[in-house]
């Protein structure tokens, strides 16, 4: 039978708590908010948890107490000598929308070696462990090195994940990426360089990149990727119907030029 008595103070100590919700008071509020009683004086409050309590569950208390939690703390809770007997890891992880896979557990475990700034960066960017599980295929040293550099970058979440994944693929392919990664902090240029190393021929796959078109003067264009398609974003300003007609007819002239260049390219 799983039954543990955990001092609330013990719980707060246990979560070293690189997160903001760490006071005993917060814990009390979390316990009360889900209707679980605690007993004893302030110094020795106990959180009674056992199967005789149908609800609520300790996982819910923790999730309420720590709505945001860093990877390392999560790992410590899941592996705490007392807590692990009464916490179901999949239930706790589901409170944080994290799938309970082996890879997630490995990522959490590895995170205990990461610095506070890296753990904070992950929290800030709202990166879930399964989103970086691809790093598990690297050695711990390679993984830690990438994560530590990442923690000091100012890249967006999307660019960060792209950079991490591409870099990890290159490392698995035993391609030397040190030159591209040396410039710190990592920025958009790093993303482009790493991408070029991974897909040196991606230029040749794309007619949009290979063809130069002559657009009418009052029209601005930008090549852009949206998901699996690369194309042109075309922008123009019109102030009356005739102007629109004129612009569209100018635009229409681009069509045969584009088609013939495309045909030449494919032949």
């Amino acid at each position: 039978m799983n039954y543990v008595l955990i001092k609330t103070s013990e719980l707060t100590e246990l979560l070293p708590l690189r997160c903001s919700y760490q006071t005993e008071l917060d814990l009390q509020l979390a316990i009360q908010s889900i209707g679980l009683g605690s007993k004893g004086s302030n110094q020795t409050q106990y959180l009674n948890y056992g199967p005789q309590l149908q609800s609520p569950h300790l996982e819910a208390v923790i999730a309420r107490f720590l709505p945001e939690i860093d990877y390392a703390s999560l790992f410590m809770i899941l592996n705490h000598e007392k807590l692990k007997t009464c916490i179901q890891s999949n239930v706790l992880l589901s409170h944080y929308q994290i799938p309970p896979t082996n890879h997630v557990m490995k990522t959490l475990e590895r995170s205990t070696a990461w610095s506070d700034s890296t753990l904070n960066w992950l929290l800030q960017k709202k990166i879930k462990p399964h989103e970086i599980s691809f790093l598990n295929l690297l050695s711990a040293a390679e993984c830690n090195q990438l994560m530590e550099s990442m923690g000091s970058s100012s890249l967006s979440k999307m660019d960060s994940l792209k950079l991490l994944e591409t870099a990890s693929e290159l490392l698995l392919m035993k391609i030397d990426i040190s030159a591209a990664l040396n410039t710190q902090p990592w920025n958009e240029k790093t993303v482009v360089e790493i991408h070029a190393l991974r897909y040196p021929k991606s230029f040749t796959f794309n007619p949009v990149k290979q063809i130069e078109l002559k657009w009418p003067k009052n029209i601005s264009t930008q090549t852009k990727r949206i998901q699996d398609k690369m194309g042109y974003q075309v922008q123009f300003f019109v102030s009356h119907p005739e102007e629109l007609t004129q612009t569209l007819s100018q635009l229409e002239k681009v069509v045969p030029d584009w088609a013939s260049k495309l045909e030449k390219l494919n032949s």
Partner: protein
Amino acid sequence: MRPFNFDTIYIDEASRDSDVAHRIQAAFPSDKIQWVDSQFMNDHKGPLSKDQFEWSKRNVLVTPFKGHFFKRCPGASQKTALTCCNYYVLNLGSQCNLNCSYCYLQSYLNTAIMKIYSNIDMAKAELLDMMKSFPKYPYRVGTGEIIDSLSMDELTLYSRQLIPLFKEFPHWTLEFKTKSDRVDQFLDLGPVENVHVSWSINPPVIIDSEEHGTARFEQRLTAARKIVNAGFKLAFHIDPIIYHEGWKENYAFLVDEIVRNFSPTDLKVISLGTLRFQPEQRLMMRERFGMNSLVNQAEMFTSDSGKMRYDWHLRTEMFQFVLNRFKNNNPAWNIFLCMETPETWATTLNKSPMKVDGLENLFRPLPKVKSETSESATAR
């Protein structure tokens, strides 16, 4: 019967009297077989790890299926993004004893063991019910959605149970989809026009590097020839087309071998599809097959359907290359694109799927099957 590489075959007590259990007992030494109850391996939830997935390919459970056998193909539920043919599936098992690097089962399955369903009679009864209700509708039914249709058929002989059923309903079509060459067990039941055997086929270089445990290129062509000679209809799925150094020469070789060995009248249809998979499958693929796998040679992007695909321009180039090679040989080759967007159809074939000669029926709306009506009732 040629050998199978199973570690252990588990037979559910509830399947003890089934034909397939008897056949297995006759074919395998008793130390390979274990009897289990209906709860066996029932407690696994969630995605499989690499080791669990690999174990599930070497161990098989014979058990009755509880649910609807006959279902609509999952591609049909993505109709807004993809143009999908009217295709129904009859799942007679799950997981596959072959091992392709790109296999979508790696992100799809969450049962930790390969299964062969022993209650084929229930499947036949469900099918017969629909066939009798709608005998004149052109339903296409495949058995190879979450299991290879024929790689274990020498063991189950389910082909021999289904073929006579479809023979009675000529408007319905049965499709066995395979990468094996195990066809001898039902050849004597031909000719049957509305039973199609189709091979997913790729150039030898792809088969050798990505499709482990499957029949080699030549073996597939030889088996396909047997199918034509026995009076069944043949189809090829050039799917997934995989980008790799030298892809043009290799796909040219594949097309040339098909046109050298078969004529457009031998082949009901040739479908084309490019590599695609769910984003969460990447890790499993990398972990199981490494970065040298050819599936890693070109960049993949998330598409409207949520799957990772090659850049649209590259896909279109690949489709056009294969299509032109066939059409330059003979315009009569009947080709369609599998799970592609309407724009790709328009660019590659210059028309919408509804307008391609001979393919109109594949897209005609059909009455819902039982599993669809009960699912929508639940949703309501």
